[in-house]
C-alpha cells in the first residue's frame, strides 16, 4: 500500500475517534500516570463500563505534561468536547462515569480542562491553564494525544510526512536545513546538530552509525522517557531522516537506540514502533520506495549514569566497560567501532521531522539568538505545578517558577533553582530573571543539561544539596581519571564534615581549589562539570557555608547534626500527637500536659515537627 492510502486510512480512523459515535476514555498511562495509580483505573474500567452498560473505547496515551495532576483521565462523549479530569482515583472515576456517561453531569469541579476544541459551561480550556499557557509543543507535539502503540495515530497527525519529504531532498539540503534551523543538541552539550551531521557525512568510513541517546539519568529528569513512551515514532522518524542525510550515497548506515533499562515502558513502546515502522516500509530495505536502506536496533543500558556520556555510551555499545575517552579525535570521525558516528539525544531527533515539515526558518524564528526553538524541561521540586513543560528558549527562570510552576508550594520563599542535572549549578534568586538559554546558563555557572529544573525553597540547605549531588556523582563516576574519581570522594568527605559542624573555612577553600582542578583536569563532561553544584553553592550561598562552619548552625534546619527539636512549654497543649508518631520514644508526656523531647535518643527525623498542629515543636 502506498503512503497516500496509509495516510488516508489513518486519518479516517483518527478523525472517527475525534468525532466518536461512542464515548472515548483516554487514560494517561505513561510511567508518571502509572505511578500515580493509572494502572488501577485501567484495571477497573472494563468492569465498571460493563456494569453501567456503556460501550466505550479506552485508549492509553502518553504523558501530556502536568504530572502533578496525574492520574489524568479524559472523557469524550459523542458530540461533546474531550474533558480532562485530574487526580482521578477509582471512586472519583466511578462517580464521573456514572454521572457523565449516564446522566450527562460532567462534574466541572473535578475537571482540569477541555483538551482541544469545544466548550462546556464551567470548564476552562486545558491549554489555558497557567502551567500550559506559555508552552509551545514541538518535541512533545503528540504526547498525550496519540496512542503510542498505533502508528496510524502518528501518521494521522502528520507523522512520516517529513520522511517522505526528506527522501526526495538532497542529503546536503537536509543538512543545510538543520544548520539554518539553529537546532542544538538537547542532551546537554548543545552542539549544533546540522554541523554534527555534516561532519559525520563528510567523514570516511565503511559504515555510518546513527545513535540515539535515551540513557537519561539526571535526578529529576524525565523528558526523554516521556517522549519515548508517548511518541516513539517521532524519534524514529528523526533518526531515519538523519541516517538518510548522513549516509545516502556515501556508505551504509545502521542505527542503535541506547535506552536505560530502568525505562521498560519506553523500551517496549520503541520496540513496537520499530516493528510497525518496518511493516509499513519506513524502516528496513528500500524505505518508502526510495532505494534507501536503514534499520535500528535497541540496546538497553546497564544502569551506569556515565553511559549517557557519548564516548562511554559507545564503549558500552561495543560491549566494553562504560568509560569515556578523550575526544581529540571526534566521534564523527571515529566513534562506535571506530566508524563515523552520529549521536543525538531523543529530544533532538523528535524535533527533526517538525523542522523538515515546517521549515528551518520557522524553527529559527523561535527562541533566542544562540538557542533556537523550544526545549522540554522537567520542572520539579518545591513548585506547585510540577511536570513536563515545553517552552520556547529564552523564557525567564522567573516565568518557569512562578507562572508555569505556579509559585512555591505551601507559600514558602523561593531560594534557588538547580538546572542541568546533578552536575549543573544552583542559580539564586538574584539571577532568576535571566533567560533560559544554553550560553546564559553557562555564564551563571550552571548549564542547560538535558533540561531538569529542580526548584528549592527556604527549607533547603545548600550544603546539603551540594552533598546530595556530590554523593550521586561519586557513585556514578566511572573511576577512569583521578580528579573525578578521587576528587568527588574527598569533596563528599569535606562536605559531610561541614554539614556536621566539624568543618573549617580552610575546608571551604580546599573545596574551591579542588573544584577548579576537577573542572579543568577531568577527562569527560561528567567530571568537568561535577564540581558545579559545590562551586555554585559556595559562590551564591557562601553565608550558608559560613553559618555551618563558624556558627555550627544550619540556617535551613536540614543538617541533622546541627539542629535540635524542643517543645515550647507555652504552646504545647499535650495533645500527645508527637508521642504517638515519634519512632524512638523520645517525645513523651502525659495527656493534656507538657511533652518533652529526650535529646539523647532523638534521631532528628522531624516527625514531631511535622505532626504537631499547635506549632509547639521548635526546630533550631
Amino acid at each position: 500500500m502506498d503512503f497516500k492510502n496509509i495516510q488516508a486510512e489513518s486519518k479516517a480512523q483518527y478523525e472517527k475517534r475525534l468525532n466518536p459515535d461512542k464515548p472515548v476514555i483516554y487514560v494517561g498511562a505513561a510511567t508518571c500516570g502509572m505511578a500515580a495509580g493509572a494502572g488501577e483505573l485501567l484495571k477497573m474500567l472494563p468492569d465498571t463500563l460493563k456494569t453501567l452498560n456503556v460501550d466505550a473505547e479506552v485508549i492509553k496515551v502518553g504523558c501530556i505534561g502536568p504530572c502533578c495532576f496525574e492520574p489524568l483521565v479524559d472523557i469524550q462523549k459523542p458530540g461533546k468536547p474531550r474533558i480532562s479530569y485530574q487526580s482521578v482515583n477509582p471512586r472519583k472515576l466511578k462517580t464521573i462515569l456514572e454521572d457523565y456517561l449516564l446522566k450527562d453531569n460532567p462534574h466541572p469541579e473535578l475537571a482540569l480542562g477541555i483538551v482541544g476544541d469545544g466548550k462546556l459551561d464551567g470548564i476552562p480550556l486545558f491549554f489555558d491553564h497557567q502551567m500550559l499557557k506559555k508552552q509551545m509543543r514541538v518535541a512533545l507535539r503528540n504526547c498525550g494525544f496519540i496512542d503510542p502503540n498505533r502508528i496510524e495515530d502518528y501518521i494521522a497527525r502528520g507523522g512520516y510526512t517529513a520522511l517522505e519529504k526528506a527522501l526526495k531532498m538532497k542529503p546536503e539540503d537536509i543538512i543545510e536545513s538543520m544548520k539554518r534551523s539553529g537546532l542544538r543538541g538537547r542532551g546537554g552539550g548543545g552542539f549544533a546538530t546540522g554541523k554534527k551531521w555534516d561532519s559525520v557525512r563528510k567523514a570516511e568510513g565503511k559504515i555510518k552509525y546513527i545513535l540515539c541517546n535515551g540513557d537519561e539519568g539526571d535526578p529529576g529528569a524525565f523528558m526523554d522517557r516521556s517522549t519515548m513512551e508517548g511518541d516513539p515514532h517521532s524519534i524514529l522518524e528523526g533518526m531515519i531522516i538523519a541516517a538518510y542525510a548522513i549516509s545516502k550515497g556515501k556508505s551504509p548506515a545502521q542505527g542503535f537506540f541506547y535506552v536505560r533499562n530502568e525505562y521498560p515502558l519506553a523500551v517496549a513502546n520503541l520496540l513496537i514502533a520499530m516493528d510497525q515502522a518496518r511493516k509499513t516500509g519506513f524502516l528496513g530495505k528500500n524505505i518508502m520506495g526510495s532505494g534507501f536502506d536503514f534499520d535500528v536496533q535497541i540496546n538497553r543500558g546497564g544502569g551506569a549514569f556515565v553511559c549517557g556520556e557519548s564516548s562511554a555510551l559507545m564503549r558500552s555499545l561495543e560491549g566494553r566497560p562504560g568509560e569515556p575517552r578523550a575526544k581529540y579525535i571526534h566521534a564523527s570521525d571515529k566513534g562506535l567501532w571506530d566508524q563515523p558516528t552520529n549521536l543525538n539525544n531523543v529530544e533532538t531527533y523528535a524535533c527533526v521531522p517538525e523542522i523538515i515539515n515546517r521549515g528551518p526558518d520557522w524553527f529559527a524564528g523561535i527562541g533566542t539568538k544562540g538557542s533556537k526553538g523550544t526545549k522540554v524541561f522537567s520542572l520539579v521540586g518545591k513548585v506547585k505545578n510540577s511536570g513536563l513543560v515545553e517552552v520556547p528558549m529564552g523564557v525567564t527562570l522567573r516565568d518557569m517558577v512562578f507562572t508555569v510552576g505556579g509559585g512555591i508550594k505551601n507559600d514558602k520563599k523561593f531560594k534557588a533553582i538547580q538546572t542541568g542535572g546533578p552536575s549543573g549549578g544552583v542559580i539564586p534568586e538574584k539571577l532568576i530573571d535571566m533567560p533560559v538559554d544554553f550560553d546564559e546558563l553557562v555564564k551563571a555557572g550552571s548549564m542547560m543539561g538535558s533540561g531538569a529544573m529542580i526548584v528549592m525553597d527556604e527549607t533547603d540547605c545548600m550544603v546539603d544539596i551540594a552533598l546530595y549531588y556530590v554523593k550521586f556523582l561519586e557513585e556514578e563516576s566511572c573511576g577512569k581519571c583521578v580528579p573525578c574519581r578521587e576528587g568527588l570522594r574527598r569533596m563528599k568527605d569535606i562536605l559531610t564534615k561541614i554539614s556536621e559542624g566539624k568543618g573549617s573555612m580552610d575546608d571551604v577553600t580546599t573545596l574551591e581549589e579542588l573544584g577548579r582542578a576537577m573542572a579543568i583536569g577531568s577527562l569527560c563532561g561528567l567530571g568537568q562539570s561535577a564540581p558545579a553544584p559545590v562551586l555554585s553553592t559556595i559562590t551564591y550561598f557562601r553565608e550558608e557555608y559560613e553559618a555551618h562552619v563558624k556558627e555550627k548552625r544550619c540556617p535551613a534546619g536540614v543538617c541533622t547534626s546541627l539542629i535540635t527539636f524542643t517543645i515550647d512549654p507555652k504552646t504545647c497543649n499535650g495533645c500527645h500527637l508527637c508521642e504517638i508518631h515519634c519512632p524512638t520514644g523520645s517525645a513523651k508526656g502525659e495527656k493534656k500536659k507538657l511533652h518533652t523531647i529526650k535529646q539523647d535518643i532523638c534521631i532528628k527525623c522531624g516527625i514531631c515537627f511535622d505532626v504537631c498542629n499547635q506549632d509547639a515543636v521548635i526546630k533550631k
Partner: protein
Amino acid sequence: MSMVKISIDGRQVEADKGEYLLGVARRNGSDIPTLCHNDQVSPDGRCRLCMCEIRWEPAGRSRLVTSCLYPVDEGLIVETRSDKVMLVRRTVLELLLARNPEADGLSELAKEHGIEKSRYGADTDFGKCILCGLCVRACREVVGVEALGFWMRGVYKKVGPAFAEPSAVCIGCGACAFVCPTGHIVMSESGDERKIWGKSFKMEKCGKCGRFWAPKFELEWMSRKTGVGYEKLTVCPDCR
C-alpha cells in the same frame, strides 16, 4: 606524514602532524610527569599528570589537554608548566598520595611538586594500585592475552583477572608486574614455581644454563602463537 611547527614553552620545535604532544615535548626537553604512560602501550589519559595548556593564535582561548593523547597540528602553542597545569598536577598527586600513601615513587613525585603531606588523609585499603591501567593495556596490547581488566566503578574500581579469581588465560609472563609504576602487582618466584594474581605456574629450565626462567604455560602459548617448536623456545634470553 607532514611536518608541523609548534611552540612548546616558548621553543619552536618540529613534529610530525598528528604525533602525540607528550612525545614531542619530552623529545624537546620538557619535563612532563606521567603515571599511566608507557611508550609500548596505547595512551589512555587516566592519570591526568601530563596535562598541558594549549592555545592557537590568534583565537587565544586556552584549554587543558592530556598531552599523551593530543595530536599536534601546525601553529599549536603549548605551555607545559602553566598555573592551571600545575594546579591539576598538584591536585592529582595530592589525591593519589591520599589514596595510595605507600605507592612506590609517589611521595617523591609529590614532593617535587611541593606536597609533603596530603590534606585528604591517608587511606590504607587500596594498596599501591593507582588504577593507571598500564597492566591492563600491556596484557591486551603487548602480550595479546586480556587476562586483566577493570571491574566495578568509581572509587570501588579494581583491577585484576575476572571475578578476582585465578585467570584461565593468564600465561604468567609478568608483563603487568614489569609495567606497574607503583609496585602494586607482586610476582613471586621460588624454585620451579611462579605466583602472580593468585595463580601458580610451573617454570621451565633453560636448556643451556639450567635456571628456571619462564612459565611452561607461557612457552606453550608462545609456541602455539608463533608456530615455533616448544624445545626451541626453552633457551633463556641470556643464553641465546
